[in-house]
């Protein structure tokens, strides 16, 4: 079958419709970073293991390194750039604030993926147990440190969002 070149792609990302041209088998991760300049989503292992490229697709956490961009037509994609809180002077979402306050990041590379996974969890379960948080985050890898402060950040953000 012949190659067909780039095709027009319309993606709804963080509530805004973006239009660009993308190869037929382009990955969502590449479109986000290279076509749309959304660099918050990271390429880590590039094989579906580390969770650094996690985004939300219709509210569900999925890996953008394993999603073909043209499959995302008609879906609502949410990336780390979409997180905000109008009540915060810096506009930070409670998860982002909690991450900073609890030292959930060292180098920060894995953070966007963790935060997106945590957001999906807290939408589904506003008051998860520590065990549940650890289980939900089990597909995200941090190579700097342990997971204790990350879990604390999620617990703290959960409490703040509930209040």
């Amino acid at each position, binding site marked *: *079958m012949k190659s067909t070149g780039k095709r027009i792609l319309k993606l709804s990302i963080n509530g805004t419709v973006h239009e660009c041209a993308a190869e037929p088998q382009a990955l969502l991760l590449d479109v986000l970073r290279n076509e749309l300049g959304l660099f918050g989503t990271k390429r880590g292992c590039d094989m579906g293991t580390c969770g650094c490229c996690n985004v939300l697709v219709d509210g*569900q956490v999925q890996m953008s390194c*394993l999603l*073909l961009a043209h499959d995302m037509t008609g879906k609502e994609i949410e990336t780390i750039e979409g997180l905000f809180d109008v009540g915060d002077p810096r506009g930070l979402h409670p998860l982002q604030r909690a991450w900073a306050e609890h030292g959930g990041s060292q180098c920060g590379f894995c953070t966007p993926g963790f935060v997106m996974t945590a957001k999906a969890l807290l939408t589904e379960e506003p008051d998860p147990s520590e065990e549940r948080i650890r289980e939900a985050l089990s597909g995200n890898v941090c190579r700097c440190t342990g997971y204790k402060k990350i879990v604390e950040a999620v617990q703290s953000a959960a409490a703040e969002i509930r209040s």
Partner: protein
Amino acid sequence: MQADYHQPDTLEEAQALLAECPDAVLTAGGTDLLVQRRASGAQGPLISLRGIAELRGIHESHDLMIGAGTTLTEILDSARMQGDYPALIQSIEVLGSHQIRNVATLGGNLCNASPGADTAAPLIVYGARLKACSAGGGDSGACRTIAITDFFEGPGRTSLRPGEILRGILLDPPSPRLRSGFQRLGRIQMDIAIASLAVAFEWDGGQARQVRVAAGSVAPVPLRLQATEEMLEATALDPETLNKAATVAAAEVSPIDDIRASAAYRRELIAVFLRRAIRAALEAHGEAGGGTA
């Protein structure tokens, strides 16, 4: 320029595309396939099954049919599946991560035909049948049913014929006496299984009947362990029988040494898993049985 990516909306359209382009590769969730293609540098055309509504969902008539394109998360969330097919649920709970299960499909796990496909052993012990359809048949004409034990032919190879698409996985309704369970070990959950084992049997007046045992990651294909089943058939699953059957199971598998574990360790795991799986299957119903593991 990349090869094409086709996104048919119906099974018929997908079959027509496949007939027109026989070397195109079918993809559903893509969680295994895209990684494999990246590693191998394969760049041929892809036909996506993601947009085909008729491949999705859990349909109940006399049998239960799980559409091949149903995601693992959708199966986990089904109360019917949780209640009736616990070994399958247990295998999915430990398959990959949330973000994998949200995308990966049951049909994809089978068609990828990994010797360690976690859902295969449970589906073997439940006697699953696979419905495969080729062009021109719509929903019945050119469809056939394949016993799951005839489906796997080797690593990455299935008995699907050129042009056929896996439509769904058929399961018999379980009897109230059905007991079943699943055991698995990986280095961490995200890792491919070192070994796994599923068991199902009818618990009939303190005797096990229609015993089925299957194991993963211990042979070129997910394997049904018939000699082990015979050892357990029509017994009370007493400790002595279980220990004998565990020895038979360890001998019946044919594992290899690889980076995850040695063959000897895998045989040992299978013996332990058999006892544990049977004991857990009975305990889930408040029944005693089994030896020590």
